[in-house]
């Protein structure tokens, strides 16, 4: 106990107390032969304590004031201000190898040096053998020192210094001299001295030695004490400052410390480096070459204590990059990066990257969030976490504790409203330099690249560190306006609507946004320039424009009754322009598991593919789309849209990066109406009901889409452009069944997916009228029983606009169990299915179409239940038409009976094409 007390007492004492040291040299600067004596402050207000038994390192670039500080500590220099108090005997190893009397022997010089160190004669005699042994000079100890090599001199000097039994040992960076063996020996000796409880002050550039040896480090720069603390906290800052001196600068405020170093910016928080090499940096693509900001030669100035202005010149490119960095508060750094050039610049692409420590685990953007995956050697490099093609204003990482249990604060990388030129991205870097990356990227865009300006802004925004409540912060910066009605909340930000209810965000990725295809270019609402206004307590109006596009997209968003979101979109055209499509797109969270529409229902798969998957394989032309989740927290949403011509919806599962359930509402503009003259055009009005009071939501318009006919064992079912034939309860048709197809402009338009149907069902007839959404065509089907096993099928196609079709088909798709075909002049057996899915279908037989000529299938295979043969024939002969027997692809694996024309038909309004068929099930009776 007693021993421990003594030791603690000793350790508690301060060996060195340095208080506010200022030291000035007068330097004769010669300027054109005129000498002016200028003051140079080598130490500027340095204060520190060294406890007894502590090992402290001093680190800093050349000229930082390290040696001056050591000399002042030794008492060789008197400070102009401040005081130094040392307790105990100080011995120093400075300028090792110098100061020997060259004519005298090593032995005499040892004595001489020892005397200078202040050792008594007896002590010198006692120490002498140890010194001689440690120096390992052998016979040379008797030779004059002038015969020594530099290494021997250093060995001698070091041996003397460490054997002087000092209480405090000051060592200047001298361990780098001498061979490796002796270096190691010296280091060992220093460790030994440290263990003996000596106070050691070591000046070195060898960071690994400093980290191993020193309890504490002082970092000096330009005579100032930049930081003192544990080696782990000081060395990173030292490394950050390494580099060309003119291009480095440091600013700090409170816990936040920022280092600019030749095109890189490092952030430190409470002495901990947040941004590993190379920190925050830029790269630009200029004349097909990537130029990193690190390649420029930099000059950084500090016009104020909290501001850095750095200019970097790319000599070969003739460009100048300018960074303006300002510590606005103790948490906030304003950053602006510009490119300047004498001629017009054409920057093709650029990005600003911010690397963050791999300790960070969770990322967030404005309304998305997620977790980083660990960086391993086989993980795909630079994997993005956010979907492309979107302008996000803000990305960040959440607070985390690192391996040492120290807190790393949340970091937010935010851009000024940049009119959609930049998109944010969150990435994982590769395992060589594991880091989380926040990125702002400016894509090549014609209107951007061709700026004739001589100054282009690469980035403007801010970095915010250590925000306690991120949710609130994001709400404040992110949304231009927020509407609230009951539990329902709508957040509006340039080109996006985010819906949430009871604090749960329902949408994700792109949320509710639009896409406009005009002049064969896609214009996302998220990258438009928006002007918005909160018109009333629950209504926002906004107008978005894209540079160089002569139209304005108007949005009107309204919340009603705590459960309705009404979204009106119209377009104002300012000069004649062609608009092909307008989409409104809702991306809902993946917690939504199932969908219901008036054209089908189903469940979303849990797996996401690399591409978007159309769930229904068809368009929903009217009514509503309902999404529901399996959890209580996600309310059912129902999107209802009115149906002027050409509007329909689609339900999709998104790709892997978005992981969202997508509902598209499309307004596809017919080709003849694509030219828009100046004026206002309405696109859609979508009513979204979110958990309305009636728990089931609006009833689907189920009626009017399906119809049935039944006679004896036969049954015909019509559903959404498809007919199916059942015989004694067995379905004879397969998959698409009875359907029609129209080909126009190299594209197929099928009755079951691209047309909207209305059905009238009477006792013995089905009359259905289908309207093609993309084509100015209306088709009418009439199905009736002629005899007990014979169906009459009449197809009438009527145009209400001008359109060319190059193929009209009427098909019956039947089971592959049918293996024999029967033509009017021949019959045969079906070959095997050829080709992969989506390949052209295999036409087995084609015959010109004559009245009553048949195309039929029969079944011969034994062992199966015998199915009746099916025969399909037209009522009248027609010249351009043919009957065909077709084998489908492997995907459908079915046989087709087909009535097809092979000529171009130029439809004009009111033109009618009429075909009547008979379908015979079984043998003719």
């Amino acid at each position: 106990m007693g021993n421990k007390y003594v030791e603690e007492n000793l350790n508690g004492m301060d060996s060195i107390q340095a208080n506010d040291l200022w030291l000035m040299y007068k330097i004769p600067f010669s300027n054109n032969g005129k000498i002016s004596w200028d003051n140079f402050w080598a130490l500027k207000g340095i204060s520190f304590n060294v406890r007894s038994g502590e090992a402290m390192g001093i680190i800093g670039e050349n000229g930082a004031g390290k040696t001056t500080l050591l000399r002042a500590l030794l008492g060789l220099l008197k400070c102009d201000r401040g005081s130094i108090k040392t307790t105990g005997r100080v011995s120093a190893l400075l300028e090792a190898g110098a100061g020997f009397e060259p004519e005298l022997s090593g032995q005499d010089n040892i004595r001489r040096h020892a005397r200078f160190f202040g050792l008594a004669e007896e002590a010198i005699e006692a120490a002498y053998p140890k010194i001689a042994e440690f120096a390992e000079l052998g016979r040379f100890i008797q030779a004059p020192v002038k015969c020594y090599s530099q290494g021997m001199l250093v060995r001698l000097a070091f041996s003397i210094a460490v054997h002087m039994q000092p209480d405090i040992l000051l060592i200047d960076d001298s361990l780098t001299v001498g061979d490796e063996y002796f270096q190691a020996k010296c280091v060992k000796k220093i460790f030994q001295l440290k263990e003996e409880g000596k106070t050691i002050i070591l000046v070195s550039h060898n960071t690994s030695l400093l980290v191993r040896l020193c309890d504490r480090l002082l970092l000096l720069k330009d005579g100032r004490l930049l930081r003192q603390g544990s080696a782990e906290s000081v060395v990173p800052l030292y490394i950050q400052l390494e580099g060309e001196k003119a291009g480095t600068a440091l600013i700090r405020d409170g816990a936040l410390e920022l280092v600019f170093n030749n095109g890189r910016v490092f952030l430190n928080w409470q002495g901990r480096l947040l941004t590993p090499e190379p920190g925050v940096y830029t790269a630009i693509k200029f004349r097909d070459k990537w130029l990193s900001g690190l390649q420029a030669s930099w000059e950084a100035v500090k016009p104020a204590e909290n501001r850095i202005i750095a200019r970097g010149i790319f000599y070969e490119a003739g460009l100048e990059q300018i960074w303006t960095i300002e510590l606005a508060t103790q948490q906030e750094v304003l950053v602006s990066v510009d490119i300047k050039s004498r001629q017009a610049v054409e920057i093709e692409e650029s990005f600003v990257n911010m690397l963050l420590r791999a300790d960070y685990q969770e990322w967030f953007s404005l309304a998305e969030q997620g977790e980083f995956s660990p960086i391993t050697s086989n993980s795909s490099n630079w994997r993005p976490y956010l979907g492309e093609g979107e302008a996000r204003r803000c990305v960040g990482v959440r607070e985390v504790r690192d391996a040492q249990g120290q807190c790393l604060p949340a970091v937010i990388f935010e851009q000024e409203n940049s009119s959609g030129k930049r998109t944010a991205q969150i990435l994982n870097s590769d395992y060589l330099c594991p880091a989380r990356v926040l990125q702002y990227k400016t894509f090549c865009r014609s209107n951007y690249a061709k700026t004739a300006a001589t100054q282009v802004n690469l980035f403007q925004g801010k970095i915010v560190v250590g925000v306690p409540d991120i949710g609130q912060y994001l709400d404040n910066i992110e949304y231009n306006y927020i509407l609230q009605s009951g539990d329902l909340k709508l957040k509006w930000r340039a080109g996006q609507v985010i819906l949430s209810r009871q604090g749960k965000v329902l949408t994700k990725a792109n949320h509710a946004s639009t896409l406009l295809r005009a002049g064969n270019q896609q214009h996302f609402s998220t990258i438009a320039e928006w002007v918005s206004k909160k018109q009333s307590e629950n209504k926002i109006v906004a107008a978005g424009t894209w540079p160089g596009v002569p139209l304005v997209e108007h949005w009107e968003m309204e919340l009603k009754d705590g459960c309705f979101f009404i979204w009106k979109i119209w377009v104002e055209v300012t000069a004649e322009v062609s608009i092909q499509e307008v989409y409104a797109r809702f991306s809902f969270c993946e917690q939504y598991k199932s969908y219901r529409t008036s054209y089908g229902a189903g469940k979303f798969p849990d797996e996401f593919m690399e591409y978007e998957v159309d769930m229904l394989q068809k368009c929903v032309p009217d009514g509503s789309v309902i999404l529901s989740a399996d959890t209580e927290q996600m309310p059912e949403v129902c999107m209802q849209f009115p149906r002027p011509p050409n509007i329909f919806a689609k339900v999709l599962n998104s790709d892997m990066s978005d992981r969202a359930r997508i509902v598209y509402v499309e307004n596809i503009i017919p080709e003849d109406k694509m030219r828009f003259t100046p004026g206002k055009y309405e696109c859609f009005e979508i009513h979204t009901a979110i958990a309305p009071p009636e728990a089931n939501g609006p009833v689907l318009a189920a009626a009017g889409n399906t119809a049935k006919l039944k006679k004896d064992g036969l049954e015909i079912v019509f559903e959404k452009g498809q007919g199916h034939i059942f015989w004694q309860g067995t379905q004879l048709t397969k998959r698409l069944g009875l359907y029609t197809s129209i080909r126009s402009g190299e594209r197929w338009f099928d009755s079951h997916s691209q047309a909207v149907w209305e059905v009238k069902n009477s006792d013995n007839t089905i009359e259905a009228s289908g309207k093609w959404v993309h084509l100015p065509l209306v088709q009418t089907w009439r199905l009736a029983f002629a005899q007990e096993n014979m169906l009459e099928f009449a197809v009438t196609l009527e145009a209400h606009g001008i359109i060319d079709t190059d193929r009209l088909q009427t098909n019956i798709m039947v089971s592959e169990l049918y293996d024999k075909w029967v033509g009017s002049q021949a019959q045969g057996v079906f070959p095997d299915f050829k080709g992969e899915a989506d390949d052209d279908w295999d036409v087995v037989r084609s015959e010109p179409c004559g009245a009553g000529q048949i195309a039929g299938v029969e079944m011969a295979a034994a062992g199966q239940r015998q199915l009746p043969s099916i025969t399909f024939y037209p009522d009248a002969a027609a010249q351009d038409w043919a009957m065909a027997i077709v084998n489908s692809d492997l995907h459908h694996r079915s046989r087709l009976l087909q009535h097809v024309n092979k000529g171009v038909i130029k439809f004009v309004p009111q033109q009618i094409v009429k075909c009547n068929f008979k379908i015979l099930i079984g043998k003719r009776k």
Partner: protein
Amino acid sequence: MSNRTNPNRGGYFYRIRTALVRPLTERITNIIRCRRLIIQTGICRFRAKHAGLKLGIWIAVLNPLLVMLAISFVFTHIIQLDIDNFPLFALSGIFPWLFFSNCLLEAAFSITSQQVLLHKFKVPAEALPLIVIFAEFLSFLVGCCIIYPIFLVFNPQIIVLLPVLLLVLAAFIIFLFGLGLALATLNVISPDIGQSLGIFIMFWFWVTPVFYSLDMIPVKFFWLSQLNPMTHFITCFRSLLFYAQLPAGEVFLAIAGCAAGSLVCGAYVFSKWETSMLKRI
């Protein structure tokens, strides 16, 4: 008791004491504490100086004798001076003069040439001129071992005056230290001083009665020669070695004054420039 801390009570003397006397005494005790270092290092230096030479320690004797021979040749055969036993007369002046000039030159460069020591060790800077002066003194002593017996042979009475000689020597060393300290300090501040010192010492040599006697100086310059401190020291050494006479009382007074004045002057210069000097080296 409480009044002791009142600075007004001490008044002028108190302030002198705190501002001047206390640091001075501190310094002096510091030097005294270093005495062993100074003596040992002085011996080291003395050894180092002669270690590389073939002639070794004999150079300390040969130097004054050679100068004596040269001067005797010039002033007895070319310019005839009416002085009895001229070679010995000249030697009695040249021997202390050479000690003086060697000390001054060595001391003036003692800091500039050994600044490394001030970078490495916690040594008081004033010790450096002291060390070289001590090393020179050792050479002088070795020379004495040969030269003093020469004088003794010619004039055995001088043995009686030996204690006086040692006293004068002590005053001479104090004088040299003061001057050397000032020169060493100023030489760091302005290196011109060291460079012109050689010429200055030569000039000083001619105006000091080293190879001529004091009574040869014209009357109108006599007062001027009295202002030269070396006149008194040389006169003193000469009468103690050559004439075997006790110098006049005012001569003792003069050399005491010179020694004290030189020391004060050296201390003043050193204390005034020390800080900036240390920053220069």
